[in-house]
């Protein structure tokens, strides 16, 4: 049995060496990691309007990292908004962590709001987050300048079942089905969009088809949209 002194000496030296190596590595890789995360997030945001970028035939994965940053830089303006309609000056919208905001009380939430300027035409991108069957789901909704028509949507999830709940992301037709749906009814009242089990009524601008076998996730999307878009209501009124 070694003496305590020997044990402590070994352990201390090991800890110092290990801590040094890891700290050094982290410092060296931090700029790259942060840039990667930034590109990843910006890609997710732009995926809601990808049909409006260029000729609309590319998917968001087709754009290179630099292209994504470039598009975001040149065409996207961002604001951080609160549920009461006010803006927050010193928080960058792209840095907002929706997972954290979801846990806060409504009055405390700070939400990201992006405006994509496409040669005069404006699109407003909102971030929403909710609960699927197994874990959280989230997405970005792009509204046209009439603030009611949906130009595009993109969804993601943490752990939904592949083939079922995961279809909100994996199956292109699901987000595509939101195109041209409206969140406000004819009187300008906010009604959101319902993911209808069994299929949307034909011609109904406030419904999209559900997903077979994924009722809970689909209901999660409906709830997420209704609650999430409503948060932006007061601010949207002030936007031209």
């Amino acid at each position, binding site marked *: 049995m070694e003496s305590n002194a020997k*044990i402590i000496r070994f352990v201390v030296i090991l800890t110092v060496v290990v801590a040094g190596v890891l700290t050094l590595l982290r410092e060296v890789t931090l700029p790259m990691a942060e840039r990667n995360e930034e590109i990843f997030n910006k890609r997710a945001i732009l995926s809601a309007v990808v049909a409006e970028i260029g000729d609309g035939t590319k998917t968001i994965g087709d754009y290179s990292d630099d292209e994504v940053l470039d598009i975001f830089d040149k065409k996207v303006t961002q604001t951080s908004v609160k549920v009461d309609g006010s803006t927050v000056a010193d928080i960058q919208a792209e840095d907002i962590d929706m997972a954290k905001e979801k846990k806060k009380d409504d009055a405390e939430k700070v939400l990201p709001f992006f405006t994509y300027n496409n040669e005069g035409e404006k699109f407003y991108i909102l971030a929403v987050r909710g609960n699927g069957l197994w874990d959280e789901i989230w997405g970005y909704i792009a509204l046209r300048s009439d603030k009611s028509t949906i130009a595009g949507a993109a969804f993601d999830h943490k752990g939904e079942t592949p083939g079922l709940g995961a279809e909100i992301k994996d199956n292109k037709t699901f987000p595509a089905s939101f195109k041209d749906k409206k969140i406000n009814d004819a009187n300008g009242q906010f009604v959101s969009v319902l993911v209808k089990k069994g299929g949307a009524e034909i011609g109904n601008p406030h419904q999209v088809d559900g997903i077979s076998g994924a009722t809970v996730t689909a209901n999660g999307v409906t709830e997420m949209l209704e609650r999430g878009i409503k948060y932006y209501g007061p601010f949207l009124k002030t936007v031209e």
Partner: protein
Amino acid sequence: MAEVNTAVKEKEPLFGSKEKRLITDPLNDNNPITVQVLGICSALAVTSLIVPSVVMAVAVIFVCAFSSLFTSLLRTHIPKSVRMIVQLVIIATLVTVVELSLKAINYPIYKDLSVYIGLIITNCIVMGRLEAFAMANKPWRSFLDGIGNGLGYGGILILVAFFRELFGKGSIAGFGIIGSSDDYLINTMTNEWFGWYSNNNLMVLPAAAMFVIGIMIWVQRSYNTKLVDIS
């Protein structure tokens, strides 16, 4: 004159037959997953797609090889009472190196694999080889043993992922082979022979990996005479 018996110290070659066995044994006869039955958890979790499985395999080879190397280098200095803790620190450090590197090199894959990289720390193969081999063997041979076991694990992973991705999603490494849209080589909606085919959703769930690995063990034991009748 008295005869002096000098023991001849055996010079170990870098890649002699024994060394080669360290790498080839775990590929078949002593495969960590199908024979030692270790590291099953991640074999089930990440093998729904080929690309993450390849990344996982590389990560495990790296961690297994270098933790074996470092443990072997320190084996005479590690105090017995903190043996396992020290091994854990070595493994955890290497896994953190992998995580930090992955974040900087390929962020989307890092997001894909999320917790599973961290779980390499708990992968029984790594700790198992440290205890069973590295603590009692020389550094170079321990390094080779780590590589061998990592390769054995990686090989099974990629094989399982190949079947799961092909039959569960209809693609191989993201390249669509058979499915219900034009993204795939064979579009079941328009193809006259394969219209009846639809992807097997069970293959996408972790339980399917259990079946596939079970079948692999069965096949391996049928053909590998050395494995017949070992329990």
